[in-house]
């Protein structure tokens, strides 16, 4: 009896294994599994969490922090909390950029892409599964970043003023503007993921993808500097106008441009050399996103896998 049951179970198990077909959600699960089994992921997450505390620590050293917190009009939220969110955008972007280059590049570098594809998985299907896993991590990272920022802000307000009224009394306009800031961080992360994806697919290596992706934004900012020099030398507005189409400077000012707020923390980093509005920054980011996506999918779809 038991033998019969064992045989039946064995047959069922074998049938299950033999009947398997490529599964998108299975692939996403596999990618999440591989990501969480890497030390790098957890080390980066701990560093990210630690960095979210840094601006609030510095604020404690400010002599007038109590005045800033209790000032009417949400000055604390627009300056200090927004600075915390700017760090979430920058360091969250680094995290997600490294994660993307590793998740896609490692598959090429280790040659494991061939054993996955040889099981009938489509090339674009695998890329989309990886992107889904990375986006899920980006969402988790965002939630952690926001939660920690909220926690540090609440603690700071409570410690400095003895109550939370400076937070609970914020107007709906302030919350709306902070919401826009958060949305622009998500846009920034989305474009960053696509940028790192297309570069890594182009290089087909983790090292190449990682270094070129990390170099993108500094190069973008340096280009802004070069355009400034070019304008100073020629006095031709063309150079200034070109800077309005660089990705990094547009992402830097997106939050302030969309919410129409001119505050340091809302335009973190080098911006374009001409004033741009929110629609422009979103349009430029969308165009870059489409180009990155087309390059990534096109190359993945058309190129032979020789790894």
């Amino acid at each position: 009896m038991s033998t019969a049951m064992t045989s039946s179970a064995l047959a069922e198990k074998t049938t299950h294994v033999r009947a398997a077909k490529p599964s998108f959600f299975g692939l996403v699960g596999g990618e999440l599994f591989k990501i969480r089994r890497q030390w790098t992921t957890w080390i980066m997450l701990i560093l990210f969490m630690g960095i979210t505390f840094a601006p609030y620590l510095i604020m404690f050293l400010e002599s007038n922090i109590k005045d800033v917190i209790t000032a009417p009009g949400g000055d604390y939220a627009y300056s200090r909390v927004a600075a915390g969110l700017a760090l979430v955008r920058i360091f969250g972007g680094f995290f997600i950029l490294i994660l993307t280059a590793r998740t896609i590049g490692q598959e090429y570098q280790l040659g494991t892409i061939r054993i996955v594809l040889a099981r009938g998985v489509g090339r674009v299907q695998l890329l989309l599964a990886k992107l889904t896993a990375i986006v899920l991590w980006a969402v988790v990272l965002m939630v952690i970043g926001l939660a920690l920022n909220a926690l540090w802000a609440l603690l700071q307000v409570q410690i400095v003023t003895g109550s939370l009224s400076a937070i609970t009394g914020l107007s709906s306009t302030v919350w709306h503007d902070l919401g826009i800031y958060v949305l622009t961080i998500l846009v920034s992360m989305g474009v960053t993921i696509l940028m790192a994806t297309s570069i890594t697919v182009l290089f087909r290596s983790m090292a190449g993808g990682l270094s070129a992706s990390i170099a993108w934004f500094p190069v973008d900012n340096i280009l802004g500097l070069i355009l400034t020099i070019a304008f100073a030398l020629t006095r031709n507005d063309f150079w200034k106008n070109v800077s309005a189409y660089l990705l990094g400077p547009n992402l830097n000012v997106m939050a302030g441009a969309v919410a129409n707020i001119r505050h340091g923390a809302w335009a973190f980093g080098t911006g374009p050399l001409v004033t741009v509005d929110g629609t422009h920054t979103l349009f430029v980011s969308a165009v870059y996103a489409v180009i990155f996506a087309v390059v990534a999918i096109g190359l993945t779809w058309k190129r032979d896998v020789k790894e």
Partner: protein
Amino acid sequence: MADQVLTMPGVAATAVQTGEVALRTIHLTKQYGQRLAVNDLSLEVKQGEIFGFLGPNGAGKTTTIRMALGLISPTSGSVEILGKNVVTQRAQVLPRVGALIETPALYLYLSGRNNLRAVGSALGGVPEARIDEVLELVGLAGRQKDRVKTYSLGMKQRLGIAIALLQDPDVLILDEPTNGMDPAGIVEMRDLMHRLASEGKTVFISSHLLTEVQQICTRVAIISLGKLITESSIAELTKGQGEFRVNVEQAREALALVKAQPWGESASLDSENALITRAPENSGRALNLFLSQAGYVPETLERPVQDLEQVFLNLTNSGSGDVK
């Protein structure tokens, strides 16, 4: 590898060959610029067969295998596995194929077991019992929790084979499966191949180890510069070309006599002073009678069987030393 696959006497004879084609390449061609890596290659591998795919370095073996697995698009022609086109029906057919391509590609930061989980997830996951089964089969059960970066090349090769076997495939495509294995591992691999064939699975092996191929495979194809040179059974390929090898005293005198006969003009002596000659009516018995009646009684008379390595080198004109 595990004991159950070590002792399989005579399993080659029990291989299940249905006569149906498991893998077929149809005028398969791959061109890189001006270079033809694979040139109009048409092959048929029958179900239950252990098929050897041989060729010197750069002959196009790996390119062919990659096209068979849908990793490289053919310039023209097609590949069918189990009757289905691997380009248009890849999701239906490739899950039924297990493959090891060149060096084993593994997630070095994961354990052996987690490598199997990660790869298995592509097809919606594999039961833990099946993972236990394949780890046992390739002899890695004891090291399954260790990170793969601590494995030797032979162990990585075993894990690569475990990955290939994970979905209990009908067709196995193995590129240099014994690469890096010790002699015991090679013997185990040979037994495993025989066992898989006896279960009706088709095994397609590309290897440089010609002595292994000669022992394992039922048929082979030899390619050179992308073109098929021959496709034949091992027995057919290695049998002598109608000549006999005769050990006889006074071999030189016997040679002179034989060369004077119309059927013996091409006769010669080999390095061991044995007479190599055709026979009257292509019959060993007639040759024996002829020599005996002439006073040169043979001590031994046999049809020389050629070594696969020699056949390979002759067919590919390859003396480059890339075969072992």
